């Protein structure tokens, strides 16, 4: 049997019988997206939770001047959705785009409701996910309000160790809320502090 990152994720986080988790896995739709394709366009209602089995997604908005702002990246092992859009059945403010060829598992509300009945622990787990999500967002807002570009960068690479190798620098700059020039300056300053050739 093929090993799925998603099954690993479920096994680690939900105290339930393996057979039940396998059943859960089988209930989810699976879909592959080519690099550059969209899972959600802004204005769509985001009715799904995506688990990224393989690949990389970004969730971003476009402002009135046409500038993109990246809310988050979601590499393999992450969950991504738009809680506001999903719970209020409101058009999302964000696009979700595949930055690499990406495979996802898709959970919709119907599956979630059904599963909550089958797996009593699931609502507990869902609550935990929500708490994590809020914590992340709080940290992110706080960094955007108060941290220097270098502090934001260091916190970013801690959370996403390999994203810098997978996306262009302007996207990282967009996530950090700084210009690509500032990001380049931050990286140069770090290099001048830390680079010791042939020592």
């Amino acid at each position, binding site marked *: 049997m093929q090993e799925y990152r998603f099954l690993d994720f479920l096994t680690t986080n939900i105290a339930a019988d393996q057979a039940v988790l396998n059943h859960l896995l089988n209930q989810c739709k699976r879909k592959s997206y080519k690099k550059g394709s969209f899972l959600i366009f802004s204005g769509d209602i985001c009715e799904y939770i995506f688990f990224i089995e393989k690949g990389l997604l970004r969730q971003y908005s476009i402002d009135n001047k046409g500038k993109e702002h990246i809310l988050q990246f979601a590499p393999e092992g992450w969950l991504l959705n738009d809680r506001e859009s999903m719970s209020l059945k409101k058009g999302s403010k964000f696009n979700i785009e595949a930055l690499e060829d990406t495979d996802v598992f898709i959970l919709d509300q119907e599956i979630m409701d059904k599963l909550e009945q089958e797996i009593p622990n699931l609502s507990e787990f869902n609550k935990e996910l929500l708490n994590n999500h809020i914590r992340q967002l709080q940290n992110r807002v706080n960094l955007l309000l108060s941290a220097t570009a270098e502090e934001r960068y260091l916190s970013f690479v801690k959370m996403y160790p390999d994203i*810098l190798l997978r996306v262009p620098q302007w996207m990282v700059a967009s996530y950090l809320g700084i210009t690509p020039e500032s990001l380049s300056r931050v990286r140069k300053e770090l*290099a001048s502090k830390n680079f010791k050739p*042939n020592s």
Partner: protein
Amino acid sequence: MKTKNIDFIVAPNPPHFVGDGFRVHNFIPSVPKLDMQNMDPFIMMDYNSKYNFPPADKPRGVGVHPHKGFETVTIAYKGKVAHHDSSGGGGVIGEGEIQWMTAGKGVLHKEYHEEEWSKTGGEFQMVQLWVNLPKKDKSTDAKYQAVKYDQISRVELPKNGGNIEVIAGEYNGTKGAASTFSPIHMMNAKLKKGGKAEFNFPANYTTTLLLIEGSIKVNGSEEIATDHLALMARDGEHFKIEATEEAVVLVLSGEPINEPIAAHGPFVMNTRDELVKAFNDFNNGKFGELN
């Protein structure tokens, strides 16, 4: 001495682009049974089969990226590649030349079609190999070995059958210019039609042939066509090839390092912790900076 037979022959995978300058078929590690463990010490092989690039004012290539824990070997058959790195190194790999870069403890580099070549464009063909480093050498200083055309050792084959260009290791006592951290033999066999060559490598070495041009017969029977790769079995030491039409064959044979491999993207280490550290070092500027 026992005969070394072909284990299997594979056709090239569908090509993909690395950056916008290299249209490659990956053999190692994506082809089943050509994984890093089985092909040890050869952990990656991208083959840019002959491809015609139109003229371009801005050279095509791959932007700045890091490497750590292994060596990259670039063999240019057609076209020219320019490269630069974060420790100030750089150069041009011309047709028929080889560049052996030891990434060691970490380097940032970029590689592009050479500027003048890019302006006219033309046929481009090359191989990029990654050769693993033993654990004790993974943190060695980064360095380059450029093997220029006139530095390549050539061994003439009998009956005017062509020659063997030795890059590393040796062929019949003639040594190649490139030094290696673990025992590796690397050479191009350039055979005229009907030309023959014999090889002897220890049975346990990982041995593989890539057909750059033409076609050959191995041990008098199985034929390998252009752009195909043959993995040799570990069942003997000796094999012979004969060109059924004028041929260029990249011959690789290396002693397996037999150490754990933890690889992610451009870093190849021994453990997961070392990989995490590699990413941290890269993110914190320890590989330097290159624009």
